[in-house]
């Protein structure tokens, strides 16, 4: 691989509890700094709208009113994120579900305190709920509507507290990238925006050819397990390397909960990486594929035509044909 031949302006900060980095190629420092400010502003606005770890965020306020039937005025970002979550739940056959917040808190992964005036406590799922049916091994019933939305008035309500988690970060990457494109596109620049393991890149890379992204070792090793070429698009990873803890019953748990069981899912897998055109949907599918487990992931990924890489708990790396076409180097094959 050739060495970087173009000037790169790099910026780094923190957002949504993760490192936020921007690499800009082909722009003067002032222009790159303006692009960085655009990205930071978008992340700040999105975090204020969607972070359940902020007491004053829109999603925390909506969660506190969950189940009351009221529709509250919110930032348009939250409305769009809730609509995307609802759609993701349908497209992934319930593998993605924003309603896992109750289970996350039960397992000890709490965010902002939801108790307060108007808050209704998280209650067990009622009989007939599709997730209840799957937990008991029954036939899945049609999904119960949990989102009440008035898009024209930008007002939303939910029937139970929700967690936007990864899709919120993916959507924020998408929106920030759209703002960056306006700055970069006019000047012919390239950029890569990274937020806590997910990224989106496009335009000229520092070297000749596409952007090269390393897939980190989910076992914690210093070297990557593979590198992939990304001419333009997003890469997202769902991994259990972080956000692992011990539940109150003493059992180790992680944050990737299977909405169909309410428990940590994907046993037998350490990480799943998906490359696609959009960071939000790459994030949705990386998590959904992870929850499919080692036996179901290949079939689902191929059926969906996804470029996906996954690492089994024995360290083995597998990938779909679409992913193989993007792979430029594999540690195990070197």
């Amino acid at each position: 691989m050739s060495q970087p031949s173009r000037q790169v302006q790099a910026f780094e900060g923190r957002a949504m509890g993760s490192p936020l980095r921007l690499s800009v190629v082909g722009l003067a420092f002032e222009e790159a700094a303006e692009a960085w400010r655009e990205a930071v502003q978008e992340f700040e606005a999105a975090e204020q709208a969607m972070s359940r770890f902020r007491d004053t965020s829109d999603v925390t306020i909506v969660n506190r009113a969950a189940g009351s039937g009221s529709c509250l005025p919110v930032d348009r970002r939250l409305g769009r994120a809730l609509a995307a979550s609802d759609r993701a739940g349908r497209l992934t056959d319930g593998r993605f579900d924003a309603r896992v917040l109750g289970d996350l808190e039960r397992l000890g992964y709490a965010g902002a305190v939801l108790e307060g005036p108007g808050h209704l406590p998280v209650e067990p799922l009622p009989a007939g709920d599709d997730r209840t049916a799957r937990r008991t091994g029954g036939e899945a019933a049609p999904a119960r509507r949990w989102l009440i939305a008035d898009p024209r008035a930008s007002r939303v309500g939910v029937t139970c507290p929700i967690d936007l988690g990864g899709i919120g970060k993916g959507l924020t990457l998408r929106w920030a990238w759209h703002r960056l494109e306006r700055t970069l596109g006019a000047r012919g620049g390239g950029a890569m925006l990274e937020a806590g393991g997910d990224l989106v890149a496009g335009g000229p890379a520092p070297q000749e050819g596409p952007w090269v992204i390393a897939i980190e070792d989910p076992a914690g090793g210093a070297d990557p397990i593979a590198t992939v070429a990304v001419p333009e698009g997003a890469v997202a990873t769902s991994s259990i390397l972080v956000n692992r803890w011990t539940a109150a019953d003493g059992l180790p748990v992680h944050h990737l909960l299977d909405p169909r069981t309410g428990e940590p899912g994907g046993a037998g897998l350490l990480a799943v990486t998906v490359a696609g055109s959009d960071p939000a949907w790459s994030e949705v599918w990386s998590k959904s594929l992870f929850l499919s487990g080692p036996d179901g992931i290949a079939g689902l990924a191929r059926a969906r035509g996804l470029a996906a890489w996954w690492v089994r708990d024995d360290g083995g790396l597998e990938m779909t044909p679409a992913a193989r076409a993007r792979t430029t180097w594999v540690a195990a094959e070197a």
Partner: protein
Amino acid sequence: MADGARSARRTEVRRPVHLAVVAGISAGAYAVSLAGVTALQAAGDRQLSEWNAPAGDAISSISAEHDRLDARLTRARAAYDSAAAAYADAVERMAGVETRLGGLAGQVKKVEGSAAWVPPVVRLPSVSRSAAAPRAKPASNGSTGASGH
């Protein structure tokens, strides 16, 4: 003879002219009243005819609509006949497809029978690697991995 002449003059004097006058007046009055009644009846008939004119128009319109409906029914009947003929043709084709599927199923059964003889594992001869050196890890611009969510 003289008595006869006197008697004739008396009879002539007693002719009832007034009766003729009364009869004429009565006939005139009857004629006038009859003309009035006739005029009134004619006016009433004319009004009734005017009132009934919309109904007549509606009846004409319904009649025309009925004719159009009849024409459409005729066309629909023709289309139905055509669809029925096409359906019958499709049924015949389906029967042909079913026959071919039956033949295909027989072939698949034969293939499955042959496949049963194929060993589950094929041992390929080992190939020694002749690569001079492992490929070096390329420089990367970024990384994807564990995230906060």
